[in-house]
């Protein structure tokens, strides 16, 4: 997918300023995890409801920069309705994109807007933070 830089920025900004599913006020059957980076600047909680191997719902809350907040928002929007193997595939592809490894952009949809984040090494962890949380949630569900 090829998007011009302006369009990417607008999508990121839109998700930063009006994040999708921000605010966690959920029932007990949600799995909730905290994710923060080493310098502890970004700090988010992600909660997901997983039933019959499908991510039924996910929400988040926390204090984070534009890249982290928007990436969490886009991630949640992308992963709701996916099966766990589908979600893991998306997460792996996203991580590979950020870490400059081979990845399949056709799996990533709107998440492709972060395909230039690797140019700012100090922002990589910001973009990866929600994905780490989601991996954690999935592994807890699998246990």
């Amino acid at each position, binding site marked *: 997918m090829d998007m011009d830089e302006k369009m*990417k*920025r607008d999508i*990121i*900004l839109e998700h*930063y300023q009006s994040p999708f599913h921000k605010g966690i006020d959920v029932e007990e059957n949600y799995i909730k995890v905290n994710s923060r980076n080493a*310098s*502890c*600047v*970004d*700090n988010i909680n992600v909660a997901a409801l997983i039933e019959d191997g499908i991510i039924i719902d996910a929400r988040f809350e926390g*204090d*984070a*920069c*534009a*890249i982290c*907040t928007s990436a969490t928002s886009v991630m949640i929007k992308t992963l709701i309705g996916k099966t766990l193997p589908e979600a893991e595939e998306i997460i792996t592809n996203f991580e590979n994109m950020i870490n400059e490894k081979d990845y399949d952009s056709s799996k990533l949809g709107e998440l492709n807007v972060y395909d230039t984040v690797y140019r*700012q090494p*100090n*922002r990589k962890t*910001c973009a990866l933070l929600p994905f780490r949380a989601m991996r954690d949630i999935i592994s807890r569900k699998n246990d």
Partner: protein
Amino acid sequence: MNRDDFPILNSGVIYFDNGATTFKPKCVVEAVKAYYEDYTANAHRGDYDNSLRVDKMYEEVRNKVRNLINAEKDEEIVYTKGTTESINMVVFGYLAKKLKKGDEVLLSKSEHASNVLPWIILQEKIGIVIKYIPLREDFSLNDDLIEDMINEKTKVISLAHVTNVIGDVRNLQKIGDICKKHNLLFIVDAAQSIGHLKVDVQECNVSFLAFSAHKMLGPTGIGVLYGKYDLLKEMDPLTYGGGMNAFFEADCSYELKDVPWKFEAGTQNIAGVIGMGRAIDYILEIGFDKIHQHEMKLKNLAIQELKKIPNIKIYNEKTESGIVTFNIDKVFSQDTAVFLNRFKIAVRSGNHCAKILKDEIGITNTCRASFYLYNTEEEVMALVAALKRQDEVYDHII
């Protein structure tokens, strides 16, 4: 001032992160280089020329530190890796054996992690009680309330001289007098003040003082623990090995060296000590009055100009140190810092390792510009100009 002494400034960087670490003047780098290139030797180990020269330098720097902080004896100066190690040595080498369950330690919520976490661990280990001296509305320490908090269980007051987020300067004299009156230990974290303000440990009745050379134009990985001689005598080392023992035998008998050498196990950061000594000379050549006046001039200019910009919140208008803490309204501090980096302006964003201060100021993350002697009014105006372009933040960072 003295910009020619700092070659790194030629890169055009506008460095406002002096609270994290400072640049090093050429003379400090040269002193370190000379040790490595001209007279490398271990300390206290040999009878040959270079080793003797190293020994002499190593001990002379103790004397420089003593004069810097007005300690009574050279032996009261212990070399450490820095502030963090110094505070840990006091907490775990001295207070772990002196304090008992229920004894109270007074801190504040604006302390750096290194003056909170060791106490939390000690609380976990032996059940001391940590109490926080309240802050005023402007987040400075309310030292009028200290005496009300003291009871027969209170044993220690441990505070930063200058805090690293808000930059408020604590009145060491007043707090030291309170400690004397109530017979309390007074521990001072001088990390943010040592290169900026005159510190006098005797006048302020300081029991232990900790600082790092890298925040005062010196090398990284070297710092100081000052302790009153009698206290150091009773303090236990946390590391054991060569250089700190007088003898040991196969039957397990041993004797440690005297203070301060018993705390300096293993080969020390000799280059660091030499560099720190040169940094002390450099600072004293300029003088603390001049440094402080310069920083306050920059801070006052920054406050005056930043106040004219809409949507800038300043958290510490009135503090008497060269630290300005701010946010652009509705912009995450890290985004602001990344934006300023586009203009080659280096500021720190985040919680600055003072994680419990958020309880007080109600905001987790801020941007901090911390000034030092080589910063200029033009640089401050560049920060102001960049922040005036706040509408462009996201164009630059995304």
